[in-house]
């Protein structure tokens, strides 16, 4: 634990990262950027779990375990998302979210 850094400092960082991700998800048009935004949000959650575990409940282990599972699931999610984005790219030659216009009504 670093001297002078409390639980609220790290929570502020993780909250900022979360909302940066959410903002990016709403404003960006490139699908890879959208994925990066989702990753930012998930990583802020992981940070949250570790911080709560370390500062508030040092005797517990659930937060760490949750983080490990979270990282694995996030990796699976990104792999699948990129696979689908590639199959979209093959047909459209674009990964721009604005190009997705064949479904509407």
């Amino acid at each position, binding site marked *: 634990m670093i001297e002078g850094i409390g639980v609220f400092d790290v929570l502020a960082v993780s909250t900022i990262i979360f909302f940066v991700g959410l903002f990016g998800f709403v404003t960006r048009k490139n699908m890879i950027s959208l994925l990066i935004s989702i990753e930012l949000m998930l990583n802020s*959650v992981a940070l949250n779990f570790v911080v709560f575990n370390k500062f508030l409940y040092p005797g517990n282990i659930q937060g760490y375990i949750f983080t490990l599972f979270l990282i694995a699931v996030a990796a699976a999610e990104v792999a699948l998302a990129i696979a689908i984005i590639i199959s979209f790219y093959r047909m459209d030659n674009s990964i721009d979210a604005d190009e997705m216009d064949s479904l509407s009504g």
Partner: protein
Amino acid sequence: MNNFLLMRDEFVLLGIILLLLVVEILLTDKDKKNVVGIATGLFALHTAFGFMPLGEGSMFGGSFQTTHLHHNMKNILNVGVLILLLQTWTWARVKWSNRNRLTEFYIILFSTVLGMYYMISAGDFLMFFLGLELASLPVAGLVAFDLAKKRSAEAGVKFILMAGVSSAVMLFGISLIYGITGSIYFTEVAQSFHLTGLSAIALLMFMSGLAFKISLVPFHFWTPDVYEGAPVPVSSFLSVISKAAAVFAMILILFQIGKGMTTVWKPALFWLAILTMTVGNLFALRQKNMKRFLAFSSVAQAGFILMGILAFDEMGLTSVIYFSAIYIFSNLATFGVVQVISLKTGKEQMDDYNGLYRTNPKLALVMLLGLFSLAGIPPVAGFFGKFFLFMSAAAHNYYLLVIIGVINVTISLYYYLLVVRAMFLRKSDKPIAFFKNEWPVQIGLALSVIGILVLGMYSPFYEYILQLASN
């Protein structure tokens, strides 16, 4: 060791998935389409086996719990999946017969169902989260299954991005709950989860993840696009099985951790219910594509389900489960007809259904019963499902909600009857020609019709759930 048998349903389904992997290797290319029969047969056995009684208890320090109620929720899902598999028989054999990807479809579908089991039986947030992701990530693969179509890939991208962001919001909520209570087990969370500003935010963020799965307004934007772009069996799966599982999980978790927080989530669900019913109905009015139409109709139906959750007692729980079972059968009947017609003729617009009764009277009748049940017209089951939902909401003085619900039922009657009018009254120059379905598809459609009729007339089913719920 005896305890492990509590996970019987999960183990059997996992066994089927592994067995299918072996089958995939053993079958030669010529025999690949036999996978359809093997997978459907295995799942039929699993469904029948699932009705054998199972004990109650918990495993892994409370991570996994099962009671007769959980077990019967899984049975309801099983029956739904079985009907869906029978209805997709022709789709799978004809459309994918000469490709090597047929087995994948069943493996992915069954893993999704496995995820739903864990989601329902979860005793802590970690198990719930893993179940939810297992139930929603593979579906993105199914949505994008039709690799030759741009629409399918586009729907897949939309689904997985929206699923990712909603599960991130939900996880942030869970991390806050962990920070507040210091535990991820529902039983321990319930003890120290009291009303503060932070816990209110945490609970609402957590619920928005489930709201995405149930596609409540304003988390419904993916629904029509994904239903339209995905192959019809997958849209059917999403609107029926996936939604019912998420409803079950939501009500079970709220019953476990929501007791001290009713002042937060009840008003939220109240407004969500009103919004979902109204918006779903109003958008359904102007749809011409059958898949989009059914998508918005399923959004509206989700709003009615929320009424039962709001009641928050045994009767509410019972009416939610009862309505979900009826909804599964009714929607499978309508989607089944849309599916066989889309497969035979490629037509998905409402106008294409003009004069269907003259050429295909049986299909038109199945569709009629399904739509009547969705609309809630008395002789069929849908009426009783809605009736019990309204009653449980009225018992807790949600009169405004009930009035708005009744108005919405009336609106929905109009657009369900539009389809009926097209099939029975309209004439068409080029009606859909008569065609005969293969026997498994016929059984699938017949089973859903039997479900609609029997659940409405046979009251012991309701009483049985009520008896389970009151424990």
